[in-house]
């Protein structure tokens, strides 16, 4: 039971012209349910790229991603759809994580529609979700531009939770937020993890955030992953 990255490398640029740029080479680590793996390092070292690869949104140049021993590359369509549900990603900028032309309600109900949840149950699960993330019901009628960054980041998390994922890749989830809101979001993430047993891959350049959140920590620097805390 784990989400594993095995010997993952990523290079950019075409090989023919010799202008290949290696972002990172042979990186391996493992996410366990209910635990957090913190990935830190200076910007421009490919932390986000590694996150996207783990979440299956980008393919690595070499190496494999395994979900419970099942390689991502060889998955059939149905399996991949299941993978898409089980591994989610949360992005840095809360202000553009929701479609600005839709009310929050609409964005949420679309996710529920995607899950084929019956219409009668939708309101119930939306309410439960709002309770988990600690927001009042009024936010549903708002447009994203009418909400603060902290509220939107909570909602982004809540929307992901509706899919009942096993792993979430958190790409700088608090770096666009104020300190007091950052603290709230981090506590919320911890609470959700304790309740649902979700495994996190936390990507951040802020060492304090990583140290606060993670059981194990890796440092991505100069294309290599050094384990700092295991």
């Amino acid at each position: 039971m784990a989400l594993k990255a095995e010997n993952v490398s990523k290079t950019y640029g075409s090989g023919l012209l010799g202008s290949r740029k290696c972002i990172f080479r042979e990186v391996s680590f493992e996410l366990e349910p209910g635990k957090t793996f913190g990935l830190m390092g200076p910007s421009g070292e490919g932390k986000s790229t590694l996150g996207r690869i783990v979440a299956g949104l980008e393919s690595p140049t070499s190496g494999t991603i395994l979900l419970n021993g099942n390689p991502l590359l060889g998955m059939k369509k149905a399996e991949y759809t299941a993978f898409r549900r089980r591994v989610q990603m949360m992005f840095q900028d809360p202000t553009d994580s929701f479609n600005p032309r839709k009310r929050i309600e609409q964005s949420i109900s679309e996710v529920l529609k995607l899950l084929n949840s019956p219409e009668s149950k939708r309101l119930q699960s939306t309410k439960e979700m709002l309770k988990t993330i600690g927001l009042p019901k009024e936010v549903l009628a708002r447009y994203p531009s009418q909400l603060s960054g902290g509220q939107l980041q909570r909602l982004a998390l809540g929307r992901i939770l509706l899919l009942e994922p096993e792993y979430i890749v958190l790409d700088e989830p608090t770096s666009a937020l104020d300190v007091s809101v950052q603290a709230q979001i981090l506590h919320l993430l911890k609470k959700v993890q304790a309740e649902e047993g979700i495994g996190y891959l936390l990507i951040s350049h802020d060492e304090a955030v990583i140290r606060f959140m993670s059981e194990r920590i890796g440092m991505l620097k100069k294309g290599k992953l050094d384990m700092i805390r295991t």
Partner: protein
Amino acid sequence: MKKGICIQKSPGQWKDSIAHYLNLDIRKYKKTFKKFNRGGLFLFFFFLILALFPSLFAPYPPTERFVSYEPPSAAHLLGTNDIGNDILSELVYGARISMMVGFATACISTFIGLMIGLCSGYFRGTIDELLMGFTDVVLIIPKIPLIIIIGAFLHPSIWTLILVLGLLSWESIARVVRSKTLQIREAGYVKSARCMGFSSFHIMVSDIFPNLIHVLMPKFMLTTASAMISEASLSFLGLGDTSMKSWGIMLSFAFSRGGFIRDMWWWYIPPGVCIALCVMSIAMIGFGFEGRDEKERRGMDAE
């Protein structure tokens, strides 16, 4: 340097700093612009009503015949033409045809442009290169000469005209839609929608398309306006459908059947004025949409 900093802060301040430099109040101009836009809407609805209910406004059916070459009088406000049709009635009925050509063309070209732009912007890669290559090919075809040739070979009909104009004027829409799609594609909500497993079709329809409307609307209006102009010029060259009398065809007849020689200004000036006003009103609405888009963006920037 200072100038550079101020200008690039946000689109809103860009305008403001121009105002600072010219030392004038831009708000005043905005207001007149708004009035302008309202005037455009008013004119447009006037023409739209003319086009939808011509029988309410025209004194006679357009095919009824009276004495020919009559000057303006109480019975015929704009006189009659060579075969004795009442020119005012012709003018009113012509609105429908001119506007229909404009809007049908714009619908076709907006649809094609949207599809091509959306697909090439969203899927990128090979599809993008193929579609944009095709767009470039269409872009360099000289439109009017091609239509003249097609018109010479095919039976001149309003429907061929619409089809040909529509099939040839979507390139700029496709390019605008593509660049906007490329931009929206990188937004967080599209990324997270892909991450949550929504289908590409769903993302394109429900996440990207609504954010394209504000660039599509002005484009749609301007395409309509330019299609109406194209129709008028082609009709004037004698490539129009003579069974459906648009304003362009009226001009053409006035030219070929002695309106100009006899100096019958009531025959050739009204359709010309109508084309000019109608196109202007549509273009003004288009500009109005563009202005609103800018305002919205500014609102977002001001947080």
